């Protein structure tokens, strides 16, 4: 247990509106400096996991009913969301969530609140512009008029301003063209390497996620069903078939009947 963990999630259960249980005993860990991927189909609970970690759940009437989340070895149960950001845990939310009525620059200014009370010098905006030169060109324009890719860049740029220790990235590839996805992920990998930011990455696009992550968890109905280093996951027969879209042994497409059979088998196993 000498491993240096930035984030440790232990057996958490999350319930929305006091009735709908979304996570059922989910555990995961993010080692310092690593990119960890969290994969799964729609409704598996990926975004919920991130919101549970960043404590944004109460905004959506969600609640952690069991288990605990530790950031840098400390239980975050009682910390307010903005205080958590100021400790260095930054959540880049799903759907980018830029402030549309603010200019690009003002969006970055808003993120400087993440440094309040931390006693660190302010991040120069040029750091963001060096990763995303396109934002510099549009810095005086309203964020609402940016393209989807630029908005994603701005969302990640805001995270850079906050000088986080851990970044939670919720589907950075959402709604972007394959070329842009590639561009954004190469920048994500660079940020990880150059800024030493650990990352927990939620993705639908397993191929790109595996390209940057060193470890992966696969979620199904609120639980981790498979996990392991990415080299092992990409060789895993089930993962290849259902998350990477690569046929098993032959190239022949399997029929849906067999898909069903597979699902049944896995549920029974887990």
């Amino acid at each position, binding site marked *: 247990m000498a491993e240096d963990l930035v984030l440790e999630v232990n057996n958490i259960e999350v319930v929305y509106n006091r009735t709908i249980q979304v996570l059922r005993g989910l555990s995961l860990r993010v080692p310092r400096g690593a990119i960890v991927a969290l994969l799964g189909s729609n409704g598996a609970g990926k975004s919920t996991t991130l919101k549970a970690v960043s404590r944004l759940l109460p*905004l959506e009437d969600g609640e952690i009913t069991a288990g605990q989340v530790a950031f840098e070895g400390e239980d975050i149960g009682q910390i307010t969301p*903005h205080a958590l950001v100021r400790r260095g845990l930054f959540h880049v939310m799903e759907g980018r*969530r830029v*402030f*549309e*009525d603010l200019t690009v620059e003002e969006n970055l200014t808003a*993120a400087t609140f*993440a440094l309040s009370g931390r006693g660190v010098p302010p991040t120069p905006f040029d750091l963001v512009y060096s990763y995303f030169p396109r934002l510099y060109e549009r810095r005086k324009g309203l964020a*609402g008029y940016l393209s989807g890719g630029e908005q994603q860049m701005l969302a990640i740029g805001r995270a850079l301003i906050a000088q986080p220790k851990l970044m939670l990235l919720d589907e950075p590839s959402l709604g972007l063209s394959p070329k842009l996805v590639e561009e954004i992920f190469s920048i994500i990998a660079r940020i990880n390497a150059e800024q030493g930011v650990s990352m927990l990455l939620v993705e639908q696009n397993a191929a790109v996620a595996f390209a940057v992550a060193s470890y992966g968890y696969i979620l199904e109905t609120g639980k981790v069903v498979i996990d392991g280093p990415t080299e092992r996951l990409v060789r895993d027969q089930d993962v290849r078939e259902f998350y990477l879209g690569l046929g098993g042994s032959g190239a022949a497409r399997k029929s849906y009947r067999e898909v069903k059979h597979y699902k049944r088998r896995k549920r029974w196993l887990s």
Partner: protein
Amino acid sequence: MTDWLFLAEVCLAGIGAGALYALTGVAFVLIYKATRVVNLAIGEILMLGGYAFLGFAAGWGLPAWAALPLAVLCGGLFGAVVERTLIRPMLGESPISVFMVTVGLGSMLVGAVELGWGADPLRLPEFVPNRPVFIGEAYLAPKVAYGFVAASLVIAAFVLAFRFSRSGVALRATAGDQGAAYSVGIDVPRVFSLAWTAACATAAGAGVLVGSIGGISPTMGVFGLSVLVVVIVGGLDSIMGALVGGLLVGLIEALAGAFLGGEYKLLATFGLLILILMLRPYGLFGTHEIERL
């Protein structure tokens, strides 16, 4: 051409009164923008400001230059307390419930003021220079003129702070997307508290100005009704709208009062409201979402 002169004087008086509407409208918009609360008690908070000034100036015998900031401070403090004790616990409840809380708050304030000062209208001690003001040849009551200047300065300060200060960015960010505001480290509850404090302080200040012109009474909260028209006409979440709406309503009330008779003032105001709502349901400057092409 005395008729033209009369018209000019009426218009000037209307614009002067309109500036006070605009100022109170800005207070209303500030709260709505940050917290999405429709604060119907704004008129009563304005009244409270007037009475606080009276208390400091007449009761304690303080000079006006000390009583005015104290009244404004009182308003701000009151706003902070209301936000913390009444509004924040209602967070996440239906907007109607919160709205009703502010209605109740307004009634309580009227009652409290009647208990303290009685129901009769009172005059505020004179503190504005009495020398008549002429713009060209048109006469303007000095109180209205100074009220206009004060209101314009405060509004200008608000607009600048809103556009260029870091707190302004936090407030606009919170107004735009609360969840995202949390996610970038903005202390959202503090923004709420700040908005209520600033807005109630502004309303209290406006109360002193309004009271210095027309006197104060527990029923002066109906001023808030016209302010409601102002912000609906201008768009609930637009400072610019409050500005334009305030001047427009002030002007129309003055014109209706002068040419149709005082009893038609409210009729004209609400007629304008209906007209605007039919043409532009979100008000003149209300938010329409940015659509990306």
